[in-house]
């Protein structure tokens, strides 16, 4: 045991600065808006796994997340952060993806517990998805087999730091290379996998389309896509 050296934690090298708008007024405005976004995050009240038991103590009087501006919100429409806590069973992953797509962007995913990192304690199980990153983009991981509230809050502060400096844009990846994510999802759920949210139309509407957005998986989706309702049978964006 004696030969273990003192290993100091190496700070992550800051990744390249995101593009800033040229005129100073716009830059200050962006700075301000990002500061407000970082200081007011609505956490989705959705316990996907065992790790969620650590969130109430983080919210109540001892650790009080509200001083950081984080409030639990009930519907994905009002939420910014999706905390994926604990093991991600295949059935829950369907609901997680549905909820993630229903959240308005900019949205952030925090993978709490090591089960979302690489399968964790349940890595041998046939029923759990091992790597959350393949199915939805994840911003911050908080390791630990149920990290304590301090760890959860430090993870949230790291996310706040990312948002304030503009690095918290993992949500764009979901639109930019939707084909990769859809491929993984179809591999897990089968060819008939489809969510009511029209991600491609959204990508088109918000100008996030890249060449990786559409691919053979999205064509597969389009072929055997069950018409949602007589009102609008086809996914809108492809033609124009």
């Amino acid at each position, binding site marked *: 045991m004696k030969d273990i050296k003192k290993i100091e934690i190496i700070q992550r090298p800051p990744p390249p600065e995101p593009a800033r708008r040229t005129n100073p007024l716009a830059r200050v405005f962006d700075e301000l808006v990002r500061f*407000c976004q970082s200081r007011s995050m609505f956490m989705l009240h959705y316990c996907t796994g065992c790790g969620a038991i650590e969130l109430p103590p983080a919210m109540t*009087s001892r650790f009080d997340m*509200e001083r950081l501006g984080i409030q639990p919100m*009930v519907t994905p*429409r*009002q939420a910014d952060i999706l905390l994926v806590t604990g093991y991600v069973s295949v059935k829950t992953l369907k609901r997680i993806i549905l909820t993630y797509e229903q959240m308005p*962007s900019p949205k952030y995913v925090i993978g709490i517990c090591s089960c979302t990192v690489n399968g964790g304690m349940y890595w041998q199980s046939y029923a759990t998805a091992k790597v959350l990153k393949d199915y939805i983009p994840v911003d911050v991981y908080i390791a630990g087999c149920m990290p304590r509230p301090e760890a959860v809050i430090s993870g949230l502060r790291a996310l706040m730091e990312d948002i304030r400096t503009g690095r918290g844009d993992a949500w764009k990846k979901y639109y930019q290379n939707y084909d990769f994510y859809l491929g993984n999802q179809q591999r897990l759920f089968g060819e008939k996998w489809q969510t009511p949210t029209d991600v491609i139309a959204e990508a088109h509407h918000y100008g996030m389309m890249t060449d990786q957005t559409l691919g053979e998986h999205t064509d597969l989706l389009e072929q055997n896509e069950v018409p949602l309702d007589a009102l609008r049978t086809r996914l809108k964006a492809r033609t124009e």
Partner: protein
Amino acid sequence: MSWQELLLELTLMPLLAFVIGLAMVLMMRRIAAQIQRRVGPPLLQPIYDIVKLYSKQTQISHGFIHELGIMMAVGGYIAAEALLPVPGMDGLADKGGLITLIYFLMVPTLGMALGVGQCANPNGSIGISRALTAMLAYDIPFVIVVFGVAFHYQTTNLAEIAAIQQAHGVSGWGMMEMPLLALAALFALQGMMGKQPFEVYIAPAEIATGPMVEMSGKFMGGLFVMQSFQYYTAGVLYTILFLGGGENWLTFLPKIFAVVAIPMTIAMLFPRFRTEDLVRLMWKWPVMAGLLGLAFVMN
């Protein structure tokens, strides 16, 4: 009252209402935190929330009526602020009196109800049916109070009501002359601000915050703005009717904050009532107190 002054007043009153309303929302969250022995949010938290909500990238809408609902919710209250006389600014108080103001407060509720209706979400529809039932419940004692005050001062012009009360000094306050009506109005205030015991239409665990279930981004931001206007209007209206309105801002502000603090503190100590219990409570004690108060006022 040249039209420039009027224009200035009409722009200044909603802005002031918004700022004071934000302060009231902050006070509510601080009171809640204090009661639960938490630290509570920082000073500018309401502003952070609203800026973040308005700066969301995707805004999910279910159709034009959904957007119209939010516009009516915010616009209805902006218009209602111009009818509320504040120290130094009377706005359009003489054009429409107390009864007009009650109807102006119903316009945002109906607007939001229409907007939520188009979201085609059952949670929203259940929430709206409860919100309208709650409105029916707390409006009856409130109307008894309004009649008592209007008959006592023989006018429905809010500026005049405030002036009459200020003429007699503290003893002339509505609360002193009509204590029972003031009590009944407190119940109605609790319902009007939609606070805890009477908040069954925003039951987060049961119907996912009821009407706000499909509101994201600027829709939710609009409802946050409406909430701040709602607190401000409730506080100022109660102050005008019972606490002698505002001579100057120094005495006016503590009064409206005190008035709004009472229901907020009560709210944090109570669980949520079911809808029929809410209606039963609102039609029992406040109505009795109001009618008794009316009897004193009438003779």
